[in-house]
């Protein structure tokens, strides 16, 4: 009964979405306030209906209702509760449900919190959001219905893919989707502005918080995925340039560009058409990511079973959304009024450079990801494009980007002073030299040249961002107390920028450290044997059996010592899940924040007396995720800036004149 209720709610949601996408649009075109007013209740109703449907599916998973196909295929009665809940989105149908939940929640949020939006703009934004909802609801109902029953109901399910039964991955999709779908708001605003024919700083101020929120969650989602790949796949890598990783990385790059170009629209009323285009591109890349993952055309760790009908459906959806909005763009963009002027060397100029480099980076990732598909479709052979390609194209673009990222904030709006900015960066320059010298000393000048470049970049990003902050609060030039006061009164967006930029440096340090100086030892070890790993020695003590809720595991016990002192006891496992007949590697990691000792237990050798063991020493690797976490935090701090809250319901009255904000 409950699954049918969910199905019914989903069908109702489709009809509400149809109303939501049609009526307000007509209302906005004819100036009919009542018709425009339909948008808000419709968006809320659609969200509630979708939540009911999602709740019904979750319920079926939680109580293990094996008369529902989706539950049979992806759950098992012995599965821990956490994975019964996260298993809802651990499969194709459920993950699309999660997608639509996010979409409607975002749409309803605009409807509810967007009280001081101009009514016609608001009606159009919500209508466009409704249109996207129609597409995805149709997709779910026609090709991926999660509520299909099986008769007769089997006694138990097939269990969720064990690789997905992991806390890190349990929360990876919700963050990722919140990011993808969050960009749909920027997209809806862009399309609505094109229909409206007007883009102004107020528009940018409405788009920015949504983009910031989407960007922050996408950052968290990508970082979680990378972290999961690091410890769960047992290969010790943190980024593989896998097509599906790229699929999430492209919207991130484009979204980062959007975040920055929207600043120029807001502050200077320039770059308007470009920002609109970026909003369209960013969401299109999110849709394309969905297409790449869901269609099964990629050989990837994420590929779900192939179903051409689904791929074609999403491709059509992508075509309509991207093609339609680009057509609208080409018709309407020339009519948008151009805004403020600026010199190439200026804050605006640096943000343009940031956008150019980010777009170039997006393009290289795009080409590398899609070229093999293109060749395959054209029957020109099967190729794959791997990490070396991306390292050769992405890195050279990323380096000037990071260098410019530090200089940009020192430049004034309209016309900046580059030599002046560089002289004010002398302290960061000194820090770079010191850091490179320290790194060269610690590693005995070892490591490739690129590693030292990486260290220099990391130091530049970190100390340069701090220097900019110090400059703002006039540290050491006025009494410390005054500086403190200035810091407290700086807008949150300034804090956010400093945090995000400095944490970018921290991530770069982590990436450099582990790429250049990791140690890998793969060997067959018998219990009692000792292996050397960097400055550690690792003793293999024993192997035992462990019984989990829905798996059995072989657990190795390793003692890690350094200079005769025991540092840690690590217990990596090799789990076998009887229901899916799969084995997974649960690596064990000892982290000192400055480095990780990473052990994965492999197969026993032929005669069963020894095991293949992978030992890694990853210097600085935790900093990658710490940095990403910090970037997300920077985004959230920036999001709490008070000018974005102006217009929140309780401030509605005072928001009638929302323009009196400090320029920074």
């Amino acid at each position: 009964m409950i699954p049918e209720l969910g199905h019914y709610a989903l069908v109702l949601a489709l009809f509400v979405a149809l109303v939501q996408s049609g009526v307000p649009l007509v209302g906005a075109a004819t100036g009919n306030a009542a018709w425009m007013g339909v948008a808000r209740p419709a968006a809320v109703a659609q969200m509630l209906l979708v939540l009911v449907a999602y709740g019904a599916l979750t319920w079926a998973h939680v109580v293990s209702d094996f008369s529902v196909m989706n539950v049979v295929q992806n759950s098992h009665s012995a599965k821990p509760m956490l994975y019964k809940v996260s298993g809802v989105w651990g499969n194709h149908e459920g993950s699309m449900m999660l997608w639509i939940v996010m979409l409607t929640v975002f749409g309803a949020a605009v409807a509810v919190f967007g009280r001081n939006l101009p009514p016609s703009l608001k009606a159009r934004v919500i209508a466009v959001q409704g249109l996207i909802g129609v597409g995805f609801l149709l997709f779910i109902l026609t090709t991926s219905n999660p509520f299909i029953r099986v008769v007769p109901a089997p006694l138990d399910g097939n269990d969720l893919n064990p690789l997905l039964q992991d806390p890190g991955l349990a929360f990876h999709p919700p963050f990722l989707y919140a990011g993808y779908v969050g960009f749909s708001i920027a997209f809806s605003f862009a399309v609505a502005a094109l229909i409206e024919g007007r883009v102004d700083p107020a528009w940018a101020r409405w788009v920015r918080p949504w983009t910031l929120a989407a960007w922050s969650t996408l950052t968290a989602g990508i970082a979680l995925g990378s972290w999961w790949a690091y410890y769960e796949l047992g290969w010790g890598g943190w980024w593989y340039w896998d097509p599906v990783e790229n699929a999430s990385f492209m919207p991130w790059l484009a979204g980062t560009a959007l975040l920055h170009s929207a600043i120029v629209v807001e502050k200077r009323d320039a770059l308007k058409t470009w920002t609109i285009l970026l909003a369209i591109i960013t969401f299109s890349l999110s849709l394309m990511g969905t297409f790449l993952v869901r269609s099964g055309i990629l050989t990837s760790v994420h590929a779900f079973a192939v179903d051409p009908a689904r791929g074609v459906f999403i491709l059509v959806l992508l075509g309509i959304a991207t093609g339609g909005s680009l057509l609208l763009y080409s018709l309407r963009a020339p009519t948008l009024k151009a805004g403020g002027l600026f010199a190439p060397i200026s804050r605006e100029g640096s943000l343009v450079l940031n956008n150019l480099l980010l777009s170039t980076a997006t393009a290289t990732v795009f080409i590398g990801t899609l070229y093999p598909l293109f060749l395959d479709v054209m029957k020109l052979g099967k190729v794959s494009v791997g990490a070396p390609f991306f390292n050769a194209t992405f890195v050279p673009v990323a380096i000037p980007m990071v260098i410019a990222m530090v200089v940009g904030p020192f430049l004034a709006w309209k016309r900046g002073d580059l030599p002046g900015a560089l002289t004010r960066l002398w302290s960061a320059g000194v820090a770079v030299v010191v850091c490179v010298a320290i790194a060269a000393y610690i590693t005995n000048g070892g490591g490739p040249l690129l590693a030292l470049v990486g260290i220099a970049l990391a130091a530049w990003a970190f100390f340069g961002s701090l220097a900019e902050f110090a400059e703002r609060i006039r540290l050491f030039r006025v009494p410390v107390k005054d500086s403190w006061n200035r810091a407290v009164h700086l807008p949150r967006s300034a804090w956010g920028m400093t945090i995000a930029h400095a944490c970018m440096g921290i991530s770069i340090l982590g990436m450099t450290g582990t790429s250049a100086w990791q140690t890998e030892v793969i060997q067959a070890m018998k219990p009692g044997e000792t292996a050397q790993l960097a400055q550690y020695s690792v003793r293999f003590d024993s192997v035992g059996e462990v019984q989990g809720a829905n798996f059995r595991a072989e657990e190795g016990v390793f003692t890690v010592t350094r200079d005769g002192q025991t540092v840690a006891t690590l217990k990596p496992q090799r789990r076998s899940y009887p229901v899916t007949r799969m084995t997974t590697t649960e690596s064990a990691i000892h982290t000192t924040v400055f480095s990780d000792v990473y052990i994965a237990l492999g197969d026993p050798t032929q005669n069963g007396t020894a095991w293949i063991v992978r030992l890694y020493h990853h210097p600085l690797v935790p900093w990658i995720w710490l940095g990403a976490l910090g970037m997300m935090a920077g985004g959230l701090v920036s999001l709490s800036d008070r000018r974005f809250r102006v217009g929140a319901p309780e401030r509605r009255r005072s928001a009638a004149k929302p323009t009196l904000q400090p320029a920074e």
Partner: protein
Amino acid sequence: MTRKKRRLYMLGLALLGLGAATALTLTAFEDNIVFFFSPTQLQAQPVGDRNFRLGGLVEQGSVTKLPDGVTTRFVVTDTVNSVPVTYRGQLPDLFREGQGVVAEGRMASGVFQAREVLAKHDENYMPPEVADALKQAEHFKATAKTLKPSS
């Protein structure tokens, strides 16, 4: 700064970026594209010392461990032709006889030296390249059979 001049600057910058990206991409493509071959395709065209991907099924009963304990030997087949493979390191969790596999590496004296064996999420999942290669091999076998009686 006039609007025209600013546009010119922007256009110049954009073109510079585009040019640099194109140059980077083209040079990177030259060195870093990895072709995919099935054992049958490998028979037809020698690849020399290039890095490439080999895909097919792990032949039943072909997996052996060498005495050093970490090197595995197995045979990849597309049911018509097969290629011996060696791989040093830990195999992915889903590596099993009879399953589809994709390995990246080079040929050395008739043996494929795999540098990497790709992991798969799902035991029912068949890499599309492998599925394709098998289909082609099937087709090849079928045509070979139908041709025999007539020749």
